[in-house]
């Protein structure tokens, strides 16, 4: 259980959002306009950014967790793969996800390597194992980053705009993978794609103007009136002429 208690975020002295109080459900979708602080909130949870207030992780204070404990609690999947080493192979990249569990000096043992192969097989990327990261397409990179997050064995997977760079086929592939991951992990998914948010059917939180609006029943959010109130633009809920079927 993750509980935000009067959490306020200021970056470089600039107020961004808060105070926010919320008991996070096991699966949550976070939406909101650009610059509202969605990714910042996710990075705060993962321990990358400071905050005011308190975030409880079970019966512990999140700020009291060590870096390794945080890595075991949260795995963050960024919108895009940022690699500085073009020659790093997919297998090595996936394996690095298990760094928090690896021996400090000896590194990864045979069990971890076998586990990485198993995760790649489950993620249907076994054929990419020896490919350098620099040669992957956006869709392949998304699958590889998700596999690395699985390797981290974290309780919660945080996806930051996972379908932003994907074509419809890969977006659908991601949604299927996401659905299977929900059985074993808690999830937080950040997206601008309202169609995706609606299709997933999980509780939704809207972050905008520093305030978090929580919708345990997502159908309360997906009305033209509510969306217009939150985003400040007019909406029309009609079936699109062309829309992705995620089923």
């Amino acid at each position, binding site marked *: 259980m993750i509980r935000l208690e009067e959490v306020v975020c200021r970056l470089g002295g600039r107020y961004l959002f808060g105070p926010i109080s919320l008991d996070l459900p096991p699966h949550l979708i976070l939406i909101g306009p650009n610059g509202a602080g969605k990714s910042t909130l996710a990075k705060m949870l993962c321990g990358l950014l400071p905050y005011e207030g308190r975030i409880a992780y079970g019966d512990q204070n999140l700020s009291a967790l060590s*870096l390794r404990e945080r890595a075991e609690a949260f795995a*963050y999947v*960024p919108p895009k793969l940022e690699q500085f080493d073009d020659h*790093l192979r997919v297998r*090595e990249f996936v394996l690095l*996800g298990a*760094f928090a569990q690896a021996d400090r000096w000896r*590194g990864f043992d045979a069990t971890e390597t076998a586990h990485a192969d198993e995760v790649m097989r489950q993620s249907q990327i076994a054929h990419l194992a020896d490919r350098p990261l620099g040669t992957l397409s956006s869709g392949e990179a998304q699958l590889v980053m998700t596999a690395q997050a699985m390797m*981290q064995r974290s309780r919660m997977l945080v996806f930051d705009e996972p379908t932003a760079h994907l074509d419809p086929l890969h977006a659908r592939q991601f949604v299927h993978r996401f659905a299977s991951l929900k059985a074993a992990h808690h999830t937080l998914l950040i997206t601008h794609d309202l169609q995706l948010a609606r299709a997933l059917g999980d509780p939704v939180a809207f972050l905008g103007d520093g305030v978090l609006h929580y919708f345990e029943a997502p159908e309360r959010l997906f009305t033209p009136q509510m969306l217009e109130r939150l985003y400040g633009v007019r909406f029309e809920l009609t079936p699109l002429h062309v829309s992705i079927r995620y089923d």
Partner: protein
Amino acid sequence: MTKWLVVLTLLVLLLAPFVGGMPLGIEALLEPTSLEGRIFWELRLPRVMLGFFGGVILALGGLIFQTIFRNALMTPYTLGVSGAATLGCALSIALGVSGVLMGFTSAAFSVLLLLLLSTKLRSAEALLLLGIALSLFYGAALMLFYHFADALQVYSLLRYTMGSLSADASGGLWLIGACAAATLLIAYAWRHRLALLSLGAQSAALRGLHVKRTETALLLLVSFGVAALISIAGPIGFVGLVAPHLVRLLYRRSVAHLIVPTALVGGLFLVAADTLARVLSGSSGEVSVGIITALVGTPFFIFLVMRRA
């Protein structure tokens, strides 16, 4: 490929002591008390080993700097750390204190300054420019030192700043050997940390790595090795740039796989350059090895910049 590199290294280490202004025969190896034997065992072999260990330190220093700062042009030399160590060592000559201590203090100060400023800078290019500015600053401070030194001091400092392995290496060989071994062992043991750092500080922290602690430890380790080498041989540039990139071009693997080959190529490069310096010796003495590495390294540097562009 690494096996062949090991064979080549052993071959070069074995043959290099025979080559120089005075070529030596096989009898030098077998008769240690003869003049040729003494040259082989007491001068050439320690010098070749100093060159090899020095090359290991400089090459791994380059690889570690490039990984931490995630830029192909970062080395202790281009970021001004070598310049700081040179200034410290030059000051130690005037003050009569330990060159290693002064060199390391200056290099460590420069590294910590870079680490502090790197968190404020938005790009690696800005950090590189900062390193160049620091190098110029340390160079100017050294010039000021020349200005107040007497003619003899200026001459010896000038020779020193050209970088040479011709100094009596016997005293410092163990120190440089220990630094090279420590740098290689720690870099290899921490190869997965280096691979994580190559993904970016944020990505590494998310996987549970203490980024600042790891970076600081590695940079100080490199700084100590570089400062120790500079206190004995003066500044030798471009090894940290040439060796890691040559290995990257040959191996096309991640940093975790490049540590041992980079150490070997760095060692080989400096031994080969120093052997050439010995062969090119003339009436005005030996050509400094720093001149050879710069003559080879500068075109390579231009090639790298053009390739990136």
